């Protein structure tokens, strides 16, 4: 029983580690994208800097905007990662300021990822609209 519990705890920690690595790789791939003026205007973003707490608002905007559906899995994973970071920040903040700061940096990256996804969806919607207008003419 003790061995089984130990194996379970270690595997859970490893799965968590793999999940965090995956989310960080997903977020890192979005960091190279520059946000367009359009999305900055819509989401109220200044100087290409997105704050951590803006994630919830950005995901709400994402739900309002139609997309190709190819980013749903990644968005879900990053949302879970964001919730984990928020919990970590709350728990760790009184104990370690450095870890809390790291969690906040990661939360900002999550928000930036959401902003990039929103940007893509806005472009897609505009393309659709342009196609419909061209078609009706």
């Amino acid at each position: 029983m003790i061995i089984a519990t130990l194996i379970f705890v270690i595997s859970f920690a490893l799965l968590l580690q793999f999940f965090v690595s995956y989310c960080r790789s997903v977020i890192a791939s979005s960091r190279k994208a520059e946000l367009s003026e359009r999305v900055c205007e819509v989401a109220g973003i200044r100087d290409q800097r997105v704050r951590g707490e803006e994630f919830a608002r950005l995901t709400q905007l994402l739900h309002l905007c139609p997309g190709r559906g190819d980013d749903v899995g990644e968005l879900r994973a990053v949302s879970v990662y964001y919730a984990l970071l928020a919990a970590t920040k709350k728990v760790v903040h009184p104990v370690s300021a450095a870890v809390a700061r790291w969690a906040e940096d990661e939360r900002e990256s999550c928000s930036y990822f959401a902003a990039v996804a929103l940007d893509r969806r806005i472009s897609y919607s505009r393309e659709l609209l342009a196609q419909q207008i061209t078609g009706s003419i």
Partner: protein
Amino acid sequence: MDLGPIDYLLWLIGFFAEVAVVVCSLKRRNFLRYLPINLYVGFTALVSLSEFYCLRRFGFASMEYNYLYYYSDSLLTILLFFVVIHFYQHLFVEMNVSTHIGAFAIFLLFGTAVFSYQVIAQHKDHLTTRFVVDLSRNLYFVGVVLTYVLWGAVLKLRETRTRLIQLVLALGVYFTASAATYALRNMFPVLEPSILKWMPPIVAIWLPLAWAFTFMKVSEADRLETAQLLARAR
């Protein structure tokens, strides 16, 4: 043992995911580049078919099914071991140590075989079967350790090849989820008939599904630009 509709569904999903890995890598013209993966997944699909046939023809408790299960499992474990070694060769490709890694893999395989033989040598009956089962178990353990070391190397070297990262990540998740399932089944045997009996086939589906997804969605040229590099660039 009778198979229910969920068993058939899981078996079908797994089988088609295995076929999808080979088809996707052929379509992307990566079959030879990732030959060990394709061999492993292709053989897994063949073994699934054979086991299905054997189960229907001879039954779950038959000698035929048992022999097929243990011998094919041993073969698949050896192939999976070479998949892990193949990832090492990909990771260290720029260091030109491919030959050394290959030699190390053969040494490790031979060492594990000798160790397995020494453990079961005193048994006079069913020596080959015992050896096959023991070799499979020990090699699986070696594969798990090598995968975690490989993942450590991927993180330490700040590897940026997205496809390689996702392939290794999928394998790591597979091994870890298998271990977690084993632990849960030992911790909560009461849950075995209702929930936990579905865990091993679901975990087995994960690996071909994740690899098929990677071959389909991630191209060989895709790179992760790490946050550090970007910070430096800005």
